[in-house]
């Protein structure tokens, strides 16, 4: 498998140290890395799955809009970050399909663009909401 750009490698290293769940995708929307906190969101372990294609992510979790959130960005935050090369922040319900647990989350997604303005991928960070 070809080596990833150093920017993506450094994003992974940073994600490995963070408390919040982080997904890193390449330009094809394949999840190339998720950190340990994200394993709790997805219900699988990176050491066991390695990369996950977008269809597999859909089999693991389902995102639905949160009507209580008020006006919000429509669509999938990572796709928006990748296709529109801009950051997004949304509120969603996340259903973990394996055990049907529902989590209320805020998601920050942003593109990874290098010095040559080449898009390399995107990052999604999940902030679990506590209380109402």
């Amino acid at each position: 498998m070809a080596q990833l750009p150093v920017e993506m490698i450094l994003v992974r290293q940073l994600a490995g140290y963070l408390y919040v769940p982080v997904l890193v995708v390449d330009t094809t929307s394949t999840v190339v890395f998720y950190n340990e906190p994200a394993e709790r969101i997805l219900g699988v372990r990176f050491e066991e799955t390695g990369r996950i294609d977008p269809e597999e992510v859909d089999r693991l979790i389902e995102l639905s809009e949160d009507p209580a959130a008020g006006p919000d960005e429509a669509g999938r935050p990572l796709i928006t970050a990748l296709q529109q090369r801009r950051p997004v922040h949304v509120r969603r319900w996340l259903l973990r399909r394996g055990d049907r647990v529902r989590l209320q989350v805020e998601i920050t997604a942003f593109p990874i663009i290098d010095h040559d303005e080449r898009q390399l991928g995107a990052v999604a960070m999940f902030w679990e909401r506590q209380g109402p």
Partner: protein
Amino acid sequence: MKVTPYGVRGSLAAPGPATARYGGNTSCVRVTGPDGSVLALDAGTGIRSLALELPSGLRRVDVLLTHLHMDHIIGLGFFGPLYNPEMEVHIWGPASATLTLEARLRRYLAPPLFPVLLRDLPCNLELHHTGRGWFSIGAFRIRAARVCHPGPTMGYRIETEQASLAYLPDHEPALGARRFPLDADWTSGFDLAQEVDLLLHDAQYTREEYPRHVGWGHSAMHDALAFARLAGVKHLMPFHHDPGRDDAALEAAIGAAVAEMNPDFPVTPAAEGRSLELG
């Protein structure tokens, strides 16, 4: 392909009797191709001596800068071909997100740091922003890629029909890794170094020194060996020796790392003037 180090020291020149065996000049390596093409890898203090030994008939030389830290460019102002109107000098190196390579070099080649302006150099000077990917110089095919080191930093893979070389003088692929090495696809510099005949790689610190220097952009000797093993290189030349390490200490430190790691490839600490013929 002939590879000759003219400067092997990292961070700061360290001349004197205690470093005479390996040399005290900062990063500079000459690579001579089968067609006589000459590359100078980095422009540390060693590049002054490199210039003195260029063939008299040579009309073009290419300087490949990995990055613009001072120990890699400080010799540029003393590089003879820049002052020769008959010479064609090509300087390759990284731009930053906001500055061109020329603008970045002008910060050094201008007062108050240097008396001669870049634009006043009499040679035929061409500057090339080195992006990712392949380019050719004479008989060389060269691949450049960003590698893990503070600021825009390139590593180079240089190939001819007969041989291959990777030059990663300032490189900290173990940065942030809980275990090292990770898989090849998650290891900075892997594609450049994969199965090369010779890898010149940062090995500034001992394993004991490294924890006090994490994030400075340099490697422990053990990590350089592990990286070389992962990449399947045929020969490792530890490079960018710490300026505080004298010859005896350098040999002892690298010897200890080699004894512990037991690599299945030769390991030869880079030394000024000690050439290797590849291919």
